[in-house]
């Protein structure tokens, strides 16, 4: 066992509460540059912006902070970061894929993994797929094992989709309805902008051709081949609609000012990621990955190894996100300020540091997986290869083809 893995295993054994990382970021354009937070539908009619704003007390002063990346969005980004590590063969852990790449005309969809599907292992796309033998996923051995999983019997999910135990999963629409497997997330990550000051955004277009509105004297009409024409279509069909040059993307667009989603300036952005080790300790594994019942010291050892593997994978999610960068959306690129350091919150509330580089994380995941395998909690996976490849049903494929054909016809 490496020192890093040893440290993680000890933390879990010793009852440490959480591992967290709080890191400062600044806008890529430098201090004072504007960034664009996500906009929301805000019910409050007196709301000044479409952003999620909150007041925090920092160093005794009340300052406005703005939500830059939500918990849900962060989970998706970390899943994509783990997926990149998995595809590169750096991180090896179980991933299930639904493979469209061999379906005629649907090759572009490619593979949808349990790290892409919105509801992870419980997602409808897996439910609508079958094993190579044509058995619906949920009726296959793996699917049934997932359906029967619980917090107190989590081996099936650990074996098939450990990331679902990190980011949470609820089989709310499976065979047992809302009583299906329900695992709360153990990793929570969020980015806020501190001392946010809302700005305005302007929009306008100056047409280099300076085409003015000629529609009164010379109206334009839709044309199937040319896009538009001056010639009024003849025939008995419906009355042709006269168009302006702006309808076909010519002419100036008058300047407008958007004060509700005009970006913000910040003092800094604050990324907080918290992994609940107590949450991992709640997961129980009474059987090993081969279905053998575990007892006494053997079970304690296997459970500890499995939880350590999950902790290593979760921290890898945080570290690998660093490698992906923080280009959160258009005009919201953040760059880190200083070196990132994890800290461990011990059972008595004391805090101490924990360093983990990308190489450390990669090695910790590999070593933790090997240690877990020694206790019967092995992930039966090869680097970069899915643990299970599902096939979308012929029915689903045909529906997508029909839908695409209809969309193409309507465009014509």
């Amino acid at each position, binding site marked *: 066992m490496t020192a890093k893995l040893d440290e993680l295993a000890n933390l879990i054994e010793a009852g440490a509460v959480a591992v967290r990382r709080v890191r400062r970021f600044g806008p890529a354009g430098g201090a004072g540059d504007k960034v664009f937070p996500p906009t929301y*539908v805000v019910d409050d009619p007196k709301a000044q912006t479409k952003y999620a704003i909150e007041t925090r007390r920092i160093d005794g002063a009340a300052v406005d902070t703005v939500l830059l990346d939500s*918990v849900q969005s962060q989970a998706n980004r970390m899943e994509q970061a783990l997926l990149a590590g998995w595809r590169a063969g750096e991180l090896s852990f179980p991933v299930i894929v639904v493979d469209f790449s061999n379906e005629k005309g649907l090759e572009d969809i490619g593979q949808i993994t349990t790290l892409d599907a919105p509801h992870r292992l419980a*997602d409808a796309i897996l*439910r*609508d797929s079958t094993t190579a033998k044509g058995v619906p996923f949920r009726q296959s051995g793996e699917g049934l094992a997932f359906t029967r999983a619980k917090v107190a*019997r989590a081996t099936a999910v650990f074996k098939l989709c450990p990331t679902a135990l990190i980011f949470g999963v609820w089989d709310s629409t499976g065979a047992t309805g809302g009583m299906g497997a329900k695992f709360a*997330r*153990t990793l929570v990550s969020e980015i806020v902008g501190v001392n946010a000051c809302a700005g305005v955004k302007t929009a306008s277009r100056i047409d280099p051709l300076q085409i003015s509105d000629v529609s009164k004297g010379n109206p334009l009409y839709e044309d199937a081949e040319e896009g538009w024409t001056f010639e009024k279509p003849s025939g008995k069909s419906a009355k042709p609609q006269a168009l302006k040059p702006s309808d076909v993307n010519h002419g100036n667009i008058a300047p407008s000012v958007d004060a509700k989603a005009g970006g913000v300036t910040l003092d800094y952005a604050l990324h907080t990621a918290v992994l*609940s080790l107590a949450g991992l300790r*709640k997961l129980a594994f009474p059987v090993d990955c081969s279905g053998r019942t575990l007892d006494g010291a053997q079970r304690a050892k296997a459970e500890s190894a499995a939880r350590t593997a999950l902790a290593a994978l979760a921290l890898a999610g945080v570290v690998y996100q660093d490698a992906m960068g923080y280009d959160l959306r258009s005009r919201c690129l953040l760059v880190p300020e200083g070196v990132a350091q994890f800290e461990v919150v011990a059972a008595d509330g004391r805090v101490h540091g924990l360093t983990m580089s990308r190489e450390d994380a990669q090695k910790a995941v590999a070593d933790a997986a090997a240690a877990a395998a020694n206790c019967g909690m092995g992930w039966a996976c090869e680097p970069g290869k899915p643990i299970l490849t599902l096939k979308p049903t012929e029915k689903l494929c045909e529906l997508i083809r029909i839908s695409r054909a209809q969309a193409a016809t309507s465009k014509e």
Partner: protein
Amino acid sequence: MLALRIDLLTGRYVATAYNDRNEGEWPIHPARVFSALVAALHDADSPDPLEREALLWLERLPAPDIAASNCGMRTAARVFVPVNDVGSMPDFSDDARACEEAKAELAAAKSGAADGRAIRSLQATAKKLEDRLLEDYRAARTFNAGEKIDVARALAVLPERRGRQPRTFPCVVPDDPVCHFVWRDAAPPAAVRGGLERLARRVTRIGHSSSLVALRWVNDPPRPTWTPSDNTRGARVLRVVSEGQLERLEEEFGRHRETSPRTLPCGLVPYRSASNAGREAACGNLGEDWLVFGRIQGPAFPSHRGPELAKTLRDALMSAAADPIKVVLSGHEPSGRRTDRPHVACVPLPFVGHRYADGSILGIAVVLPRETSEDDRQYIEDAVVKLEDRAGAARGSQPPPVRLVMGAAGELTLQRVVGLPGLRTLDPDAWCRASRTWATATPIALDRHPGDLRSRSAAKAAEALRRAVESVESACTHIGLPAPTEVRIDGSSAVGGAEHAAKYGPYPARAGRFRRELVHAVIRFERPVAGPVVLGAGRFQGLGLCRPL
């Protein structure tokens, strides 16, 4: 002494108020924490009887005192989450179960003493069920031209075509991400303490799954900030537990199984700010019982328009109130003479004390005297409700908005705040928290003219200042507060964003009345004073409103 320390590990608390889906909850409700402990008990396949005993002991304790800081609330935003109830695959579980059972029966017959005929019959049944199941699988995955299926539902399984449902995740951000529940007179037996310790270690979240916590039983809690109270006025109602709660929760779980809608069984207890409830804080004759209206539409009036707004609201309330108008609202005895008794004050609430504060009026509070009788309170509430109903809007989870016409300046739409106010300015606690030092957010209209405070003669100015200080001191004692130990007079306020006294026009505005000198002040008392502190001649119109420092 027994104290539970709750650390909010992410610095936030994501939990929906029990009476409004768009509101956050703060402080953390004791009943919610008890439920989290019960969930920790039942996470295990076979709950530990000692831990169960510990919860049975805990539920019998009275409602705890709470130590929690103030909090800010994130603006309520709707997020859209992808649904999962889509697809074309039917549910095979019943047929699959029947098939499995038939196979199991066959296996049992083969290993038992069944005769060949019975085994053949069971074999035939199992095969028939299996063939039917395989045929069902085939039919579910293959597409027949012209087949009638819900195309949109099937196509929506692709992540980019997935429908989305609106959800809200109300979130509060406490100034200090630590909260304590304190049972001052509780002393658990060792076995109970052990059970409580083990349960607390297994609680990982309270509220939403992103609201991670660490729970610990400690012996050194800070002083409570919220205590249970018999008085519901101005109180925040929190959900608490009582004897039988564990069984009620277990019964309730048996019914809803986390699928049906559920309600947390609980008792409701009013909690008041402990700093004010404590005996050590002095208080004036206006109370913490506020009916607060927030501005939802219309111009953002500067603070100096406050008295005009207060008068408009008072007139509107008078016109809505039942006749004869009671003294508590009008401030006049039936004879027409001004009453000596405290009565309702309409206090505009300016945005002050924040880095970006600009003094604009964010709302207005109808502040009742501390000693208001039940009848009088009901009378004021009836007037407010009648005023709200006048607009003709339906009364939903929020009261209907109230429109006030402010002459040529325009129309202001206000809505009464129910539950946790989204803005600190609209939270009575921001104005009522006990403090030794107070500063005016709106200037005090001095009861007596102090002389020329701006005189070029140093002696005259000093004399005027002395009189102004005296006037502020007597304004304090006039409302029942102790005499301050120090008063500093200035034209500008010590509270950020508050408007300079010179910005205010003549007060009272009506011609022919004695014009009051308007001054800002910082006032220090020997012992803590609970708010509201509203001083001077214009206090019933919100002048002389002080903020605790």
